[in-house]
């Protein structure tokens, strides 16, 4: 149930009327998606009536427990799932009507680093470079630069990815996404399961990307410290629905007012959803997809 006082904050209208002429990086309007999980069973709603707006150059966090609909939402934005209702625009391009234009603008890092494991990072990234129409020679130099920044030694780039640690693989996945210079970067729990050093490397790099590139970022996470550190705005979803949305400071301030004591983002999440971030809600979310 959405708290009445936050209803206004869930609007997808631009904060500045003058910005209306310039489409936002991402506009998600009243999007719904459900899945049929078996004959004779009612469809399971994974995402219901979700809206959010990401301005250019911002990092927008989407917080939710496992199975809350975060990954379904990111797949809808990436065009990997069809919409049941609503619309999604990326820099003014509709994800359904302008599919190829949207694909050229986005890239994604998922929780699992998806690679051909027998191939090396360079072979995998060469494949990515060609798919996105990049000059392979230039791309190779970029790959070395990004991986060096992420503390992946150049001696690792020609060995099979299956010989790398999960943290290293995730860094290669980030390098692959940034190689294509996406205008909109979708990060689906990019630091989940990483050791503290790798997590810090990735978080610092995300901050650096925002400062040095013209990249807008959607960050799906259940790491509250990460959201507080990186995000300009946060949307909390639970059971596939938006239950709160504001800047991290705004959310904490509202929770402080509601609770009558100094609150944290953890308090915000608990009061908004009534559950812990570690709870699994698979029966309501995408984990239930057959």
């Amino acid at each position: 149930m959405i708290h009445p006082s936050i209803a206004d904050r869930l609007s997808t209208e631009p904060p500045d009327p003058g910005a209306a002429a310039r489409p936002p990086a991402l506009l998600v309007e009243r999007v719904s998606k459900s899945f049929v999980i078996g004959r004779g069973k009612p469809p399971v709603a994974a995402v219901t009536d979700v809206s959010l707006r990401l301005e250019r150059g911002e990092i927008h966090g989407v917080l939710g427990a496992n199975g809350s609909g975060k990954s379904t939402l990111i797949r809808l934005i990436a065009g990997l799932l069809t919409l049941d209702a609503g619309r999604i625009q990326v820099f003014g391009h509709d994800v359904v009507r302008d599919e190829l234009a949207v694909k050229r603008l986005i890239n994604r890092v998922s929780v699992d680093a998806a690679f051909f494991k027998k191939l090396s990072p360079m072979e995998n990234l060469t494949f990515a470079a060609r798919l996105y129409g990049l000059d392979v020679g230039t791309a190779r130099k970029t790959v070395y630069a990004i991986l060096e920044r992420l503390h992946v030694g150049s001696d690792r780039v020609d060995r099979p990815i299956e010989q790398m640690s999960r943290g290293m693989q995730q860094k290669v996945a980030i390098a692959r996404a940034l190689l294509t210079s996406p205008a909109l970067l979708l990060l689906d729990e990019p630091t989940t399961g990483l050791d503290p050093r790798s997590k810090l490397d990735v978080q610092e790099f995300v901050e650096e990307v925002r400062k040095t590139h013209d990249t807008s970022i959607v960050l799906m996470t259940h790491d509250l410290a990460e959201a507080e550190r990186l995000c300009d705005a946060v949307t909390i979803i639970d059971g596939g629905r938006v239950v709160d949305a504001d800047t991290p400071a705004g959310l904490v301030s509202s929770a402080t007012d509601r609770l009558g004591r100094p609150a944290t983002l953890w308090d915000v999440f608990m009061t908004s959803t009534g559950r812990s971030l570690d709870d699994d809600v698979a029966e309501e979310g995408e984990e239930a997809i057959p």
Partner: protein
Amino acid sequence: MITIRGELRASYAFAERNFFLTRRTWPWEVAFLIYSVAGALSITLIGIDQGSKRLVLSLMVGAIFWNYLSVVFGWIAETIAVERWEGTLEYTMMAPIRRSSRLIGQVAYAMVYGLIHTAVIFIVLVLFFPELDLSSSNPGTAAVFMALGSFSFVGIGILAAILPLLYVERGAQMTFVIQSGLLLVSGVYYPINILPGWMQVLSHLSPATYVLDGVRAGLTNGVGVADLGHDIWPLVILGTLLIPFALWAFGRAEHYAKRTGKLKRTG
């Protein structure tokens, strides 16, 4: 604006990636080649046992060209299955390329790989059976039928690639049903007129029937392409219909997978 050059570059990406995979798994490739050579030799030796040079040549042609068509079919049919296995399917589907570019790259690599694989088997068989007289054969006819048959098999391969898209756990295995069905009805190792009547109807719908008929006529009797119109036109029709139909069907299957969330899960 999508340029032809950009799409060709994307197609090349798939061919190059498959080459990388082949290079990385070369021990498996060698093992598969030995397996294929042994299979072709075993089948051809049946002809030697029967004491018929004509049967030897017929079985050899069947073994060699079935190998080529199987390899081409297999690579294309596994387009989705391999990506699902590796977990890269969603990433590939997100790339800003046309479906046809993706499939063209896979097809091009499959055909080159199949030709090299088949050439090795052919050379081994010729060396193993020096008594075979190929002086009156017409290799041009064999080449034309292989090329024409490839179009149809590309279409069937794309249709087979749909199965792993629709059936997450067992889709890859289901493609074997198509392959074995073609083997059964296409007269690979025996004439189709020994089949039951209803199976012969299916034989006439299989492009492999016409490919093998044409190749055998060319290599065994030295018949030219001009005299094999009855085998050419069905291949032209099948190739012309199957590829666009397969691309359309693949598009529909992709949409279904996106609607039901089947791109996500790994098998």
